[in-house]
């Protein structure tokens, strides 16, 4: 347990610890409001008359009250308040906790584990499951891209400007999945669970620098015993040498394809589960649907790959001479 404390007390990990508390809090905070709104929505939907007259907010409202208030002072004062509080927090934090400073940089003395800044640990964790070029380059690009396209593929006009769950189940779940599960959780794992040699240490375990692990990760084709022997007959003499490679390359495409199709269907199924979401789905243009599919499928591939790796010790699904997936 002291190990856990050691990590948590690392000055640089304090933000993550903070995150651990902030995240749940704000999720709860948001959902509390969402529930209220949803109540209201339900009420209005069942009672159109009310919908005509109601001011349609969960906040109190009386005729004659200003719809708008002056920024000065009503907003300003809050901003000042927040500024001050933040300052106070920051200063206390700074006084009580020193920014870390270790030995002078020494290229000959490798730190073990050598960890990236905490906010990139998610990506570093991904390295376990993917080749660097995916985890380190493709993923971030996709994440950024994915985030950017959200407004354009979300065809649901509802829930603009207020917390709601009922009206945006799909969107919210997707986001929570991506943000909390895939991003924050990975960071937490990278920080608290990964020890020397980037090996898996439960918080109760102490980081033993001499620990050794034995794990053979095989490629899917190896499991299926693809060696291209059959291909060798088909190919012209001169190509025989590369038979195995070609075989693998070709073979690899299938599982990926299969996955893509399945995942696509899954997403589709998600989108058409309720009457409402079907309606939204209707509104989407083809481009939007395709984009949505692409990103959803890729996103889903992460947990799938992680599972494959952790459960079946599968390294690559698709092996080609140039890159592997």
């Amino acid at each position, binding site marked *: 347990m002291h190990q856990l404390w050691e990590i948590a007390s690392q000055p*640089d990990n304090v*933000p993550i610890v903070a995150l651990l508390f*902030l995240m749940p809090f*704000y999720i709860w905070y*948001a959902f509390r*409001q969402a529930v209220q709104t949803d109540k209201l*929505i339900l009420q*209005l*939907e069942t009672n159109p008359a009310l*919908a005509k007259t109601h001011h*349609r*907010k969960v906040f109190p409202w009386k005729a004659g009250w200003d*719809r*708008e*208030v*002056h*920024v*000065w002072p*009503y*907003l*300003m004062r*809050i901003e000042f308040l927040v*500024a001050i509080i*933040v300052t106070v*927090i*920051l200063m206390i*934090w*700074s006084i009580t906790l*020193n920014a870390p*400073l*270790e030995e*002078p*940089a020494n290229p000959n003395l490798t730190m073990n584990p*050598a*960890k*990236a*800044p*905490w906010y*990139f640990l998610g990506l*570093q964790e991904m390295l376990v499951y993917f080749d*660097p070029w995916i985890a*380190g380059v493709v993923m971030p690009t996709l994440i*950024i891209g994915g985030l*950017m396209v*959200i*407004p354009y593929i*979300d065809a649901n*006009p509802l*829930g*603009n*400007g*207020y917390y*709601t769950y009922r009206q945006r189940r799909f*969107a919210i779940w997707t986001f929570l999945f991506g*943000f909390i599960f895939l991003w924050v959780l990975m960071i937490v794992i990278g920080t608290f669970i990964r020890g020397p040699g980037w090996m898996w240490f439960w918080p109760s375990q102490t980081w033993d620098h001499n620990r050794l692990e034995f794990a053979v990760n095989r490629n899917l084709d190896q499991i299926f015993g693809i060696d291209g022997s059959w291909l060798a007959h088909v190919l012209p003499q001169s190509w025989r040498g590369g038979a195995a490679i070609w075989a693998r390359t070709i073979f690899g495409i299938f599982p990926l394809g299969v996955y893509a199709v399945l995942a696509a269907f899954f997403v589709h199924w998600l989108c058409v589960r309720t009457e409402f979401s079907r*309606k939204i789905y*209707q*509104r989407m243009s083809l481009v939007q649907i395709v984009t949505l599919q692409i990103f959803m499928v890729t996103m889903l591939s992460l947990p799938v790959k992680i599972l494959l790796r952790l459960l079946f010790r599968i390294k690559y699904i698709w092996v080609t001479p*140039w*890159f592997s997936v």
Partner: protein
Amino acid sequence: MPEENGGKGRTGLLGKVQQDAKALKEFVKEKGKEGLEGLKDPEKTQVYRSIFRVKHEDTPRSRALSVLTNVFFHLHPAKINRDAVRYSYTWGMGGITFYLFIVLTFTGVLLMFYYHPTKIQAFRDILYLENDVPFGKLLRNMHRWAAHLMIIAVWLHMFRVFLTGSYKRPREFNWCIGVILMVLTLLLSFTGYLLPDDQLGFWAVTVGTNMARATPLLGHEGPFGSQLGMTPYNDVRFALLGGSIVDANALLRAYIWHCIAIPLIAAVFMGLHFWRVRKDGGISGPAPVMLASEIKDEKGPRPVIMKPSGLDQHSR
């Protein structure tokens, strides 16, 4: 006064002096009164005017003015949706992020006074900051923690914006800018990590940049990289570090990125971000709920209706 002078001469002279004195007293009294009055309501004074341009009364107008005419406040509209002032809605994360950015700039500039981005001096300078510079330790700590805090704030901001669907029409583009800003924030923090030139930063950055090796096409270990003649000495990582290892050049580059390039870029985008917030009709809510029954079933993009979201009650 020498004795010799005559008596009458004295009276004459004396009288004159007394008169002058009296006159002076009057004058001073007068001016004093004015001064006091001036102090009574400072808003009348020239100095006050010169600074605040408008005199503040507790009228809607002057409230509006005080915001609109103030270079710092005029990011805000004069009035906003009555419910938008609630913390519960915005969580104030955007504001906090901006505030932290300012704090960081401030502390950062001070730190720059004591820091040389050279292999020999960088680490020493940190020691110097820690032990010698008055408030140096505090300064450094604040800078570092504010940076971490900012990242959290940014994430939460994004989270909030998503949950309130604020990215939806007409704010799609501003969301994109937001995403870019978030990336910039991460980069800022990352580039700052190396500067103390200690083991922590060094290895963190090494790990971080090693990924760049694997950039498809551009990294010497990435797919098709070697086929395109990428080597450790000409690939993208080399470009990032200014060398094949994290060394003096990397330090310098990190420094420049961290202190000049990214902040500038970020500032520009921030400006854009805020401007768009205003142009897209202030913050998104809290808006009156919309019901599924009210969805007009038309496909594809539609013209954006520029309307401050708060106001659309009137239209109904």
